[in-house]
């Protein structure tokens, strides 16, 4: 008699398989490479800039692209390329911090809403919907009016405006799992609610939420760029993608180069994260493919 042993792929093998599938299309490969580059540049930013991003060199102000300054210089003669690299660090910091905090809050509240009594669920839903009904930018402007412009204010704005969508998504997912047979079985065996949530529900819920979160990175980048562009986000002289756009906009009639170059990393990363999210969703959850 022959015995067949079905080996479950290891976690690494599964990750490699997903990456292979992802890179099977040109768009998937593009988004994967850009996202990797975003992380790599963001982490190593301080070591790879060709110039000091805040060093002023008035003699060289508003110069176009050259061998010395690949993307030209701004109104104070600072190297735009170096500033964009350091801007990546700020964008990465904001994306990782604010999305992680929002995820933790969203997952916790979503689970509480789905697993406790009707009243708490109802109250939490009302809170989520109230926050979502605030017009995003108005909420941002209010927070800035109250606490002043800073990186932390941007984190607060993003966390508060995104966690309700995660919480709602988790709630719906948990509710559909709550009465599944394998959960009933755990309950029958005497598993506590927290054990069921931690070991059996969370692993099933986390995938779709992470995909939505990856698609929120463009939102984070957009909020930073928007607020810093308005002078309400990252404070000068710290370079961020938004402040670089703002500098470029002030001198757009002298040179259009800064705005053009400053917009490129924003376009590349936002497009890459969105299409990466879409591709991952298609690979991991083919039911959602339309």
């Amino acid at each position, binding site marked *: 008699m022959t015995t067949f042993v079905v080996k479950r792929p290891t976690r690494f093998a599964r990750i490699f398989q997903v990456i292979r599938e992802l890179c099977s299309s040109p768009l998937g490969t593009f988004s994967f490479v850009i996202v990797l580059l975003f992380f790599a540049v963001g982490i190593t930013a301080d070591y790879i800039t060709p110039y000091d991003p805040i060093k002023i060199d008035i003699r060289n102000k508003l110069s176009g692209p050259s061998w010395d300054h690949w993307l030209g210089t701004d109104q104070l003669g600072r190297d735009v390329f170096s500033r964009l690299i350091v801007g990546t660090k700020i964008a990465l910091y904001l994306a990782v911090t604010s999305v992680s905090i929002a995820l933790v809050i969203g997952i916790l509240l979503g689970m509480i809403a789905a697993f406790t009594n009707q009243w708490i669920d109802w109250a939490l839903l*009302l809170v989520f*919907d*109230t926050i979502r*009904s605030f017009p995003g930018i108005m909420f941002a402007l*209010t*927070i800035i009016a109250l606490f002043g412009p800073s990186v932390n204010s941007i984190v607060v704005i993003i966390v508060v405006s995104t966690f309700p969508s995660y919480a709602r998504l988790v709630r719906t997912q948990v509710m559909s799992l709550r009465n599944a047979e394998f959960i009933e079985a755990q309950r029958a065996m005497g598993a506590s609610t927290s054990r069921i949530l931690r070991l059996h529900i969370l692993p099933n819920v986390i995938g779709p939420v992470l995909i939505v979160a990856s698609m929120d990175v463009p939102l984070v980048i957009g909020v930073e760029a*928007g607020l810093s562009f308005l002078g309400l986000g990252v404070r000068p002289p710290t370079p961020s993608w938004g402040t670089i756009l703002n500098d470029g906009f002030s001198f757009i009639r002298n040179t259009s180069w800064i705005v053009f170059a400053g917009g490129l990393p924003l*376009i590349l990363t936002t*497009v890459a994260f*969105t299409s990466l999210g879409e591709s991952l969703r298609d690979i991991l959850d083919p039911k959602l493919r339309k």
Partner: protein
Amino acid sequence: MIGYAVQRIGVAILIVFLATTALFVMIQFVPGDPANVMLGPRATPELKEALRERLHLNDSVFVQIYYFFVGLLQGDLGVDLTSNRPVVSILAEQAPYTAMLVISVLLVALMGIPIGTYAAVHRGGSFDQLSGVISVSIIAVPPIVIGLYLILVFAIQLRWLPAIGAGEGFWAVIKHLILPTLAIGLTWIGYVSRLVRASVIEVLMQNHVKTARAFGIPENKILRRYVLRVALPATVTVLGVSIGFILSTAVIVEILFSRPGIGKLTYDAVISRNYPVVMGAVLSSTVFIVVATTLSDLLNVMLDPRSRDINS
């Protein structure tokens, strides 16, 4: 249906109440004395005391909220700190500019319907793939970047369209509207086309369409009478629900293009810490969004009663 409508309207009122209260509580967290912050460090103690008295800052938060709601019911949102004019009349002056922008964005977004339908009917073809890539890319890019690139190309390089202000006279107003509308609208054309494509594909696979085909009804007629009629209402209601996002981006685009409107008003009020105006602008746009969302939700339930279970 009436029960559901009453429930939705009740929730909408509750949301507006909660949002206002939250705003009030946030203002309490402002570091330092609000009167000091509003009038600046050089104001005399008498002036500060008068302002505190006028804004009921000496009372508890609950009393302040009570006064605010009493005022609100009488159509009074307080007074602008710099010009001393009623906030309501300032809002009424600025609102038409924002409304015009939002409406023109909605109209432009409708261009996504033919694009999405054509892509769905020729699914997998080169148009479908191209429009898919362009839509996904354009949905992702922040409107401020699209706006800046539009200014760069059409106002600075080509000098075809104006980039600043709202214009006076019919043609000038239209010309000034084009770039801001496209800055927001391009994203929405992409979004609507994706949405319409998905729902048209779904309907195309349903039995009633197969039956119509079996009867030999021409493809065009099937599309008009059986497919779009089912696929479009959902899209229109999604647009209704998304009006909040459109308004949000309108605010930032107004500032970029130096257009008058609620966005510019709020921005200027934030910069000068003019809290009554900030409060009035945020509250009025919240009310606008809650009303739009509730109405499109009710419309959706009227058109498709199945969605009631999903929404509730």
